[in-house]
């Protein structure tokens, strides 16, 4: 018997006790919060472990589950060696490459794609929501159908095209094909539907141009959806692996997930290094998520719950 087992048994005994005393409501409340808390502990444990692991030496990485008790702290259990090793320049065919270059690549790729997607998708979504034009139904049908096609199917021919366009091994070759997405257009279409027609008509009567209506009237109104989509898009591209892994070849052009996957082999015997890289790669999405959390949950579920 260890402490953890005793704790779990005690929690279970408390639940049974409440049931036996006839306090059904209290028992179910107790069970609910216990289960939720245990679930949260399980979810958070790997993060906590990672946070401790990045400061530990290779020799003690697995010695303590998290950090050792305070009196055992030493140079070995709390140092920045993993960071030093990670940020060291590494030789490649084109000269030394530094970790911050991968961070920069990932940032450029994810940011450019997100900004362009927000612009093009909102423009398209607004057009679909608020205009009547020839071919609209056919286009909507085509878009719905195209969402059924898994993107991996297109990767091989797309790779061939990118090679033919001489865009292979550059971030442009990743950004340009990903500038617009059907999913984003549908999200913005949904959001633009709720903009009152009267407001658009009034702006038109006042002499506002069509692009001006989009920019100055519609966009501010669909801001929550834009925020949600911003996060969805940034997360997707920041963490993207399949396409970058195929399209990028030179060491100094790689993005974070691709490099970290390579480091799995390179630092097989010094796991602290790629774990540190992994921990650092988690920070930007987390910051963005905390900034946009409220809009994000609403945006993520609006399509499914309404539809």
């Amino acid at each position, binding site marked *: 018997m260890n402490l953890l087992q005793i704790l779990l048994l005690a929690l279970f005994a408390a639940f049974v006790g409440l049931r036996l005393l006839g306090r059904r409501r209290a028992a179910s409340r107790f069970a*609910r919060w216990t289960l*939720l808390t245990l*679930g*949260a502990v*399980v*979810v958070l444990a*790997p*993060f906590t*472990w990672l946070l401790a692991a990045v400061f530990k030496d290779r020799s003690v*990485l*697995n010695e303590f*589950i998290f950090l050792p008790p305070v009196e055992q702290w030493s140079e070995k259990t709390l140092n920045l060696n993993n960071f030093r090793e990670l940020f060291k320049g590494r030789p490649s065919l084109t000269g030394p490459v530094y970790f911050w270059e991968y961070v920069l690549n990932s940032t450029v790729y994810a940011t450019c794609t997100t900004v362009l997607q927000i612009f*093009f*998708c909102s*423009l*398209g979504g*607004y*057009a679909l929501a608020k*205009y009547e034009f020839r071919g*609209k139904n056919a286009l909507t049908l085509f878009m719905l159908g195209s969402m*059924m*096609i*898994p993107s*991996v*199917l*297109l*990767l*091989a*021919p797309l*790779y*061939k*095209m990118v090679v*033919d366009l001489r865009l292979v091994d550059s971030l442009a070759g990743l950004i*340009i*094909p990903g*500038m*617009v997405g059907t999913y984003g257009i549908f999200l913005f279409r949904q959001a633009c539907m709720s903009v009152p*027609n009267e407001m658009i008509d009034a702006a*038109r009567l006042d002499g506002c141009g*069509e692009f001006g209506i989009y920019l100055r009237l519609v966009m501010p109104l669909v801001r929550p959806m834009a925020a949600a989509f911003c996060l969805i898009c940034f*997360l997707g591209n920041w*963490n*993207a692996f*399949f396409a970058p*892994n*195929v399209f990028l070849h030179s060491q100094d052009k790689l993005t974070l997930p691709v490099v*970290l*996957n390579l480091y*799995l*082999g390179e630092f097989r015997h010094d796991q602290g290094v790629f*774990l540190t890289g*992994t921990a650092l790669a*988690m920070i930007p999405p*987390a910051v963005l*998520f905390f900034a946009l959390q409220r809009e994000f*949950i609403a945006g993520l*579920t609006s399509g*499914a*719950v309404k*539809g």
Partner: protein
Amino acid sequence: MSGSVAQRPVRPPSRPRYKGKAPYLFLSPYLVLTTAFFAVPFVNAILLAFYETNGPRSRAFVGLANFVYLFTDSVFRRALFNTTVFALVSVFVQLPLSMALALLLNSGGDRVKGFFRLVFFSPNLVGQVLVGILFGVLFTPRYGLINRGFQMVLHWGLEARWLSEPRLIMPAIVLTSLWLWVGFNMIYFLAALQTVDKTLQEAARIDGASPWQIFWHVTLPSMRHVVIFVVIMSVIGSYQLFELPLTLLSESYGYGANDAGLTLITYLNYNAFRCGDLGLGSAVGWVVALIIFVISLVQIRLGRLAEED
């Protein structure tokens, strides 16, 4: 004729129609990019499946040979089997867990709900690759956090070689995927639960229905749209599983011992981009697309049938 018009609710006068070119202009980025980077590759993907290629530049027409090869290749059948097992586990283990969490959370106060929702969703901020890298270390025999956790609670598993013993590879992938995605689907179920009509549940309760009966006959049917949506999305996602096994089993490019962790997309990635046979890769892509298409249609159909009852 006039009678039927009079019965309709009063409508605002129809607004003047805009007749300019703006919508085409607004949609032109989508149209141009989609033609270039979706329609053209799509047609090429059809053609490519009938060729044998060596890298992006050389190809030879082979007819249906790629498909014939796939269905005689025992490695491909293994991939198909593994991926199907994973999809079934996703639907029958992961989604019920998501639903259970959503039900547990649904009756809490707003602030507590927000906190737990944040915690359970947080693994999704981390991409599959990073999760695979992290869990690859957590599954270390004797020392890994997961091995120690199992040992402490169940007195089993300290020495379990999760990522090298064929019997344990799929369970390891499933455990990781549960950590990653249970909270994601919970968000959908939680949002749907909040739209369920409370008076219906209350009426059922007064009529003496048990909580389980209320859930099964009142709550679940009234959120069936979301359930069908989530089931379809997770089947589609499951059939595209790739990055998680690739990073967990990085030493064998995601295949694992005895191909125990091999998925369809891992097979595609290896053959198309490591061995250079883009034609075979396209053929695999078509098989995946076809599976996804058929399963989605069946599920939408079943959803309709359930509605008519």
